[in-house]
């Protein structure tokens, strides 16, 4: 078996695969991995679509520091991070 195929199989077996991962650092930085896009974007509120629903980040002076297919980084003054299940 080739090495690349083995790695692919291991990834598929990962139980957290495609599951959203939210990491809050202090009150100024939120990292969201495995997101499905931005639903709403404003300086006070950013809503992100994930597998189980939406993640709502509320705060002041929020800014998308980095936005890519894999992860999303929000900086600003974070007041709350909430998950709304579908």
């Amino acid at each position: 078996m080739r090495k690349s195929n083995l790695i692919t199989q291991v990834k598929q077996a990962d139980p957290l695969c495609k599951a959203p991962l939210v990491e809050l650092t202090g009150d100024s930085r939120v990292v969201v991995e495995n997101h499905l896009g931005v639903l709403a974007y404003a300086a006070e509120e950013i809503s992100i679509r994930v597998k189980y629903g939406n993640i709502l980040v509320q705060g002041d002076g929020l800014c998308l520091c980095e936005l890519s297919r894999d992860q999303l980084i929000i900086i600003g003054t974070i007041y709350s991070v909430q998950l709304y299940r579908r």
Partner: protein
Amino acid sequence: MRIPFLGGMCRLEIVCADTVRLLNTLTNAQLQMKDVVYRNDLTVELTIPASQYRVLKEIADKQGANITLLGKKGIVNSLQTLMKRPVLTAFFLLLFLATCYLPSRILFVSVEGNTTIPTKAILEAVENCGIRFGTNRRSIRSEVIKNTLLQQIPQLQWAGVNTVGCTAIVSVKEKTVSEKQEDTEQRVSSIVAIRDGIIQDCTVLQGSSLCTVGQAVKAGQTLVSGYVNTGLLIRGTQADAEISALTARDVEIIAPKADKGRGDITGISRKYSVKFGKNLINLYKDSGNPHTECVKIYSERYLTLPGGFRLPVALITETVYYYEITEKTAVSSEDMQWLEQYAEDYLQSQMIGGQILSRVTKTEPIDDAYYLYGKYACRELIGKSKFEDTLLKDDRNDGTNRKL
């Protein structure tokens, strides 16, 4: 492997009816966005790699969004911006080259350890060895320079060169003069004749007389020996005597009839040059000077850093003073005795001691000068001390003292 950010980054302002939808589309298109700032419901600012600008523009055009390029960042863009300013680019390039070049070069040379030999002489010798402003540090061979320095300056006992930063430190050690040579009182000396003559008087105070009154002697002949034979042994002393002799001297004098002298200053001009090491850069056009009636004063001002380091850069000033020429009569034809008096004074100054007994002079004018030829018979002291190199004073030849 492609490095996405090497090509630089673009800062964009996007005006769109649905900014969130556009951002999601861009995300799905694998674009990497940074610093996405929400301005209002219709406007958003973001930064993307310059290589992804074309993809973003295609997507934005499809969604009817307006894109405004706010700025560019990155190495390539910085270089392109810098190339638009050639003077600044040349300065940075020069700075870079100087940073690479100067640490490997010798900028200063200092000398330590010398007491009697002038520093300037050592520096000149070192410069002849190849150590000068701008010399590569790696090309300095201390052994070669040591041998060359010892050959050029015989007073040196040892020499070495070390480099500290951009400074070459020349360490020298001078030879110590032996006490045997310094202490002349311990050496045997004789009296020798300095001129040809006939001995008229000979008074020997110490030593063995080798001449008699009426004897003709030649220059260099020993008149009184410093070695005294006491019968049992030969003793070395310092000969002391007063010996006068009849001598003959010839004198020729040529004096100009008129003398040119400087009058009032008619003008002053200054010329400036800059000296880098041995290279001279003139800051004026014409180097010739059509006027011969002038005095030139040359001055060098070296740039010196705080701490005493003298840079090899000097400002050279040449000040030329122009003046009038005035002629005055130096010797008049009626006053020819002045020449004879001058000749006698000159003769007296050339003697150790003595007097002129008789003279035969001949004076005649030639072209623009007066010519005097004279033969003088003198009575003068002709003895002069000469140190012997063989024995020391009070040495004996009986085998008890073998200091040779």
